[in-house]
């Protein structure tokens, strides 16, 4: 399909720019994406930065962890938690957040964006 041509691996930052077991906020044009280095598991995740609860640009400053096997992030404002895998809200009624794929290559970190997200 033609659109796939425009899907991109966006170069976000270097591995060392992200605190281990923490997150940073990546600017993609006028969007904000939270990027997490789950060092304990050797995994990377990316989600929207905005918390759907009070529309705060804050998830990248949230704390990550696990609930059972599910990796999650807690918003620093009111501690709503969201699955880093599916984006579903694990602690109640708030809508799900968007998640992105992450790739690490030669110490560089890339986030996968579909064409309509660029």
């Amino acid at each position, binding site marked *: 399909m033609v659109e796939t041509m425009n899907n991109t691996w966006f170069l976000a930052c270097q591995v060392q720019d992200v605190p281990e*077991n923490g997150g940073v*906020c990546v600017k993609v044009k006028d969007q904000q994406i939270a990027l997490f280095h789950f060092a304990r598991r050797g995994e990377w995740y990316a989600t929207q930065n905005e918390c759907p609860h*009070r529309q705060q640009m*804050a998830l990248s400053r949230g704390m990550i*962890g696990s609930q059972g096997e599910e990796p999650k992030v807690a918003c620093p404002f009111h501690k709503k938690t969201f699955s880093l895998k599916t984006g579903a809200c694990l602690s109640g009624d708030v809508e799900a957040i968007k998640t992105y794929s992450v790739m690490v290559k030669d110490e560089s970190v890339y986030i996968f964006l579909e064409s309509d997200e660029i």
Partner: protein
Amino acid sequence: MKIIIIGNGMVGYKFCEKLIAKNPQDIELVVFGEEIRPAYDRVHLSEFFSGKTAKDLEMAPASWYEDHGVKLHIGDPVMHVDCQNRTVTSHAGITESYDYLVFATGSSAFVPPIPGVEKDGVFIYRTIEDLEMMRDWAPKAKKGAVIGGGLLGLEAAKAMIDLGVTDTHVIEFAPRLMPRQIDETGSAILQAKLESIGLHILTSTNTLEITGSDKISGMRFQNDQLLDVDMLVISAGIKPRDELAKSAGLAIGARGGILVDSQMLTSDPHILAIGECALYEGMIYGLVAPGYEMAEVAIATLLGSDKQFTGFDMSTKLKLIGIDVASFGDPFSSDAEVRSIVLEDRNKGIYKRVNISADGKMLLGGILIGDAEQYNMLLQTCKNQVVLPPNPEDIILGSRGGESEGGAGVLSLPDDAMICSCEAVSKGDICSHVINGAENVEAIKKCTKAGTGCGGCVPMVKDLVNHTLKSQGIYVRNVICEHFDYSRQELLDLVHLHNLRSYDEVLSAHGHGDGCEVCKPLVASLIASLWNEMILDKGNDTAQDSNDRFLANIQKGGTYSVVPRIPGGEITPDKLIVIGEVAKEYNLYTKITGGQRIDLFGAHLTDLPAIWEKLIEAGFESGHAYGKALRTVKSCVGSTWCRFGLHDSVSFAIQIEERYRGIRAPHKIKGGVSGCIRECAEAQSKDFGIIATEKGWNLHVCGNGGSKPQHALLLASDIDSETCIRYIDRFLMFYIKTADPLTRTATWLNKLEGGIDYLRNVVVNDSLGLAEELESEMQKLVDNYVCEWKAAVENPEFRKRFSHFVNAPEEKDPTIDFEVLRDQKKAKAWN
């Protein structure tokens, strides 16, 4: 070695039990008992009337002796002892030889030589047979009497009422009841109590004759007073059973009793005596606990180890249902130095007296009538020389602040405190058995025998079991979250013990999974509380709550507040100007806070390091407004300006704020110092509040504002500055080490069993012996302090984290928006 024991009473039995428990090699035990059944619990003899059978009262069944290789001859008294050839001969004609002979012949009731004591219907109160005879006689009797108003006499009188002889008189020769255990006022109140249950009491009454033909019909007293009686119990004291010892040629005391030394040896080196027949330093010990101690000593003597009997405390509690009477230690203060505190409530029939050393520190003894609930605690406080609280009257009045005594008192006792004196079981023994799985009183009774003697310690045993279980987290396991199966306190100990310094280390060593927003800040706070290292170091930054991670409070819209420390609320004009300049430069909203300092709101994450750099340059430090840490120590102006001020409250507030700045705790901590009783610093609403007095400072603790305000409670009064700081050191450190996460001091105190009294005991009286440790731990934290904002701005690695976009560090978050308000700005409302 062959040992013969004469007498199978409580002490004779205990001797066998204790000896067997020591598993000695090559020992042969032979026991002769005069009574027709093996040893039984004489202390609880009266329960025979409330339904207990002889079997129930048995110390151990006959099979026990067999199982343990003890040769038991019951119903067969020893009639002759040949010390030369070391043999004994019994009534049935059995002759046995011995290497060592132990007299445990006990006592018999002392029967005064009153004409007529041999008549039918006259009883003594000592054996099961005595009670069986009373039981058979009672239905024919209407009017009863007991000679003797002592401990046993009153127990017998109560038994008469229980047997249906409700019209019963107690005849006492002395002018009052229980003259050896309680004082005059106590006697009077006890008498009133006994009269209220229907007993008639005749004191100063001497019985001259018991009248009747074969059968008792009455009593004649001095002044020819007469009393119709058809049943009489004589309980006028005890008489040691020394007749056999005497005929064997052993040394006997002038007024009876087999003379023993501190090793329980009689005048014959192969013969020992223990229990109620033994006379040690002119004293017959008519209680079971000293008898058991003697048994222990005798065994040591026989097995060649060194143990001495050095006398024993004669504290007692009367077992009358419904009437509490107890006396302990020295119930009468003979010394002029001794101070007594007395509580007398004739209305309720309560009398309590405690005797206290001149310095107010030690409990010497006391009397409890009408309410002896505190008996065990007081007895232990007395015996173990536990330092008393500053207001010693609390120990009999109970704390009046609504705190429950609970079992916390037990906690203040040292490990070697004797909880069960009958069986010599210490607090440490009980606690360690609880830890090893004996999780209820019954189990403890089984494995330690505590509570199986007089039973007086059972409530304390129960408290100890509960407390130990609790401290083991068994019933109330406040586990932190799915990642750690520990309570905060347990985890703190682990982190301390294993010297762990990062969240990841702690999780790997003691947790599972990947952590979460509950355990991360908790562990990060523990680490900070223990080591006081820079909180962003060692990868701990991502374990910190958002506010701690960025060293500022996140606010609506995602900006942060900046709160420099202004110790005691004192600030120079120059510093005020700097704050103004910084606020202007970074367009910050400024407000005087409720904590006497200035908050600058609306800072971008990216600007924080630069803002702080400027503030630090002007001499400011972090105010820790973001941390579970010391916030402010509020001051009033005090004696430097105020016409009422007693001391310089500002200087003291500054000194204290600077001492505790940066220290992490389970929740935030606030202090206050007021220069006089007018209390302009509102110190009593703080976690610790200090108020100047004529003589020094009053220290209040555990106050709280917030949604559930609570006044702080007085911890110590009229103390000097140095003592005040020492107490705060201990108090804060104790709180830091024991509180649940996110629990302010007020809530912590509310949950602390024993409340403020317990806390005072720990902090002021050092009842746990922790004071020094707490102080030095605090000092370490104090010494380790560095301003974390200074550390952050000077370290490029930390500094790098204060940017919104990782890929555009100079840019601010474009979504942040402000509105205008009264010449300043405010955060945009939530959507």
